């Protein structure tokens, strides 16, 4: 076959399904204990993150010496999707668990690993991702924020923008310019750094979402000095380092379940006896979701097997985010003729409103629709 898109049928192994029951039990207990209530607003919840850490479910695939469990990526998959469905408040540890920890594992010095990784697995520290800038969003390689090597360390100057959760993060994995792009390769010259957000010369300014929520920030670097060993990997070569991380970042359940709660609430809102129109709408949504989940697990299986399914991950993210973005609108239509209050009208309408307001961002964050389709076109041999 000339067009190599591959989605092998993969099923989660028994140990992952056993873990699922354990996770469900834990979430039920924590909800009953009042640690969280599953409402749409998921503020950071240090107590919850600490308890998840105690369970060993942060950095679950990492080496035991760093507090990990050395369990499989498919087990991590299950923990992640159960947390998403329960609307568990994972905000404090989510980014560190998904992508920052793995970056440290791969590129950081032993001293840094021994210092930070155990704190991640205990749910004590949070990370943000410093990629976009005022003049560099989708076009990552236009980043200008500079890192200059001095005798005392790396001197950072510039601004990052749209940095989610920077204001509550202890660390950042940032992308900074260490030299100019070359004639042959405009991607050359960027490097990945670990940033300690408490260092002098680093400040954050809130940039509010339309609904007033504070997630985005502007991060200003004014002669911030990072230790030499905060450079992650090779200087100037960040473009080579990001590929498999992107596959992890793009193919997980969070790329189609972000608004998923709407579907489950809609089912209860419509009730046991849907009319034909409602039944058809539900059936299509479930078929689409089931297919997305199969695709996502297939990518997880490939990652587990040590492959780099970058193209397939981009397919999952584009299909998934477009789907989860449309879901609240589809649900709004399907709910239009429910006249009686099945008992959750207020709750349903609140959840619907919340998800309609967050929907536009889903096809922007972590790679826009346009960027993803460019990657898929490249995979098809068109670029």
């Amino acid at each position: 076959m000339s067009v190599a898109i591959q989605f092998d049928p993969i099923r989660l192994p028994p140990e992952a399904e056993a873990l699922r029951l354990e996770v469900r039990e834990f979430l039920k207990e924590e909800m009953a204990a009042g640690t969280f209530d599953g409402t749409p607003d998921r503020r950071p919840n240090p107590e919850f993150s600490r308890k998840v850490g105690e369970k060993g479910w942060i950095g679950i695939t990492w080496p035991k010496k760093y507090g990990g469990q050395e369990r499989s990526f498919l087990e991590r998959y299950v923990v992640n999707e159960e947390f998403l469905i329960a609307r568990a408040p994972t905000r404090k540890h989510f980014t560190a668990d998904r992508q920052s920890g793995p970056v440290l594992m791969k590129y950081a010095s032993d001293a840094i690993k021994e210092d930070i990784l155990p704190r991640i697995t205990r749910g004590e520290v949070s990370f943000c991702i410093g990629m976009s800038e005022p003049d560099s969003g989708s076009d990552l390689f236009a980043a200008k924020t500079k890192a200059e090597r001095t005798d005392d360390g790396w001197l950072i100057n510039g601004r990052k923008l749209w940095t989610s959760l920077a204001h509550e993060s202890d660390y950042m994995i940032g992308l900074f310019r260490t030299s100019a792009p070359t004639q042959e390769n405009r991607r050359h010259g960027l490097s990945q750094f670990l940033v300690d957000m408490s260092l002098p010369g680093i400040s954050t300014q809130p940039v509010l979402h339309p609904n007033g929520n504070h997630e985005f920030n502007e991060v200003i670097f004014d002669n911030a000095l990072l230790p030499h060993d905060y450079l992650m990997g090779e200087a100037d070569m960040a473009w080579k380092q990001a590929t498999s991380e992107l596959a992890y970042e793009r193919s997980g359940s969070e790329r189609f379940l972000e608004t998923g709660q709407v579907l489950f609430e809609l089912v209860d809102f419509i009730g046991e006896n849907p009319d034909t129109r409602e039944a058809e709408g539900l059936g299509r949504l479930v078929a689409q979701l089931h297919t997305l989940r199969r695709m996502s697990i297939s990518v997880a299986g490939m990652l587990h097997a040590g492959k780099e399914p970058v193209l397939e991950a981009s397919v999952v993210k584009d299909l998934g985010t477009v789907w989860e973005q449309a879901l609240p609108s589809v649900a709004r239509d399907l709910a239009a003729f429910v006249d009686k209050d099945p008992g959750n009208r207020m709750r349903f309408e609140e959840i619907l409103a919340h998800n309609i307001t967050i929907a536009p961002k889903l096809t922007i964050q972590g790679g826009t629709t346009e960027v993803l389709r460019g990657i898929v076109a490249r995979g098809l041999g068109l670029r």
Partner: protein
Amino acid sequence: MDEAQTLVTDAATRIFRDLGDPQTINAAGDDSWREPLWTALEEAGLTSAWVNDELGGAGAGIGSGFAVLRVAGEFAAALPLAETLLAGWLLEMGDIMLPGGAMSVAPMQRGDSITLASDGTLSGTARAVTFAAEVEHLAVLADGPDGPMVALVNAADCNCSAGRNMAGESQNNVDFSGVTPLQSAPARAGIDAQALKLMGAATRSMQMAGALQTILEIAVQYAEERVAFGRPIGKFQAVQHNLARLGEEAAAAIAIASSTAYTIETLEDWTNGGVFLEIASAKIRVGEAAGEGAAIGHQAFGAIGFTKEHILHRFVQRLWSWRDDFDNEAVWAVELGRRVAAKGGEGLWHSLTAA
């Protein structure tokens, strides 16, 4: 894909490439390609992959049979290959010996039921049965006095209406009134009209996935070659994004159809709720991909794709036909939606994770 499936895929691909090339068939003004292609498929055991050797089949297994179907879809095979495979599967479910030759299967459409009376005669009509008027035998799932029966029927004994599907293949309403089957036997436990519909839907889903894959391949190739405004059209971002969408739809179809094949391969009980979720999802999602994929495919080819001389229609018209066989997306969605509603929101998540 395991080793056996890879071997079967390679064998089927070789035969179709040699004897069933869509371009050659499209250009041929007659049916002279049919006989050699069918004979080669039959001799390679590909038409009876789903029947074990004691009953006269090739015993290649469920997974290998689906591998054959995917290749058949990739070549838009204008032969009753899928129907013969499926009929063989149904006959095995009644432990009936394979008669040999081409077959089709009934019923294929919602609401159609066929009855086998205690005097041994059939009654009822099955609508829109593909290839019914061209095959020697029909495998029928009928309601008997004591439960579901599998019957082998001589097609010539039935009253078949004239008719063609959107791809121009014969598709007939079959009246079974008063017909005595050549053989009949009680269906194995769990095999009933619903099981046949599920297996049929899975069959069509895999064929559609194969056809979508080919539409993707020929559209990408065309975009690389066709020059407009001074460069290959595949260099234009608008075209790239359209083809990326086609690639994603093909990927979704391939993923869920392959997953469905795996589910059936490892299935123990056809009445299990997980198999319904899996196959209903496949028929719905692949059917949606078929509609979208056909539209994007045509858009990519422009006017040349909208001609009889171009092969695109062979794939598109079969997608349009296949998505209607064994019930269309809407019918499956309503039934799936009702089941989901009955179990509630939490039940839905539990069903998805248990499937």
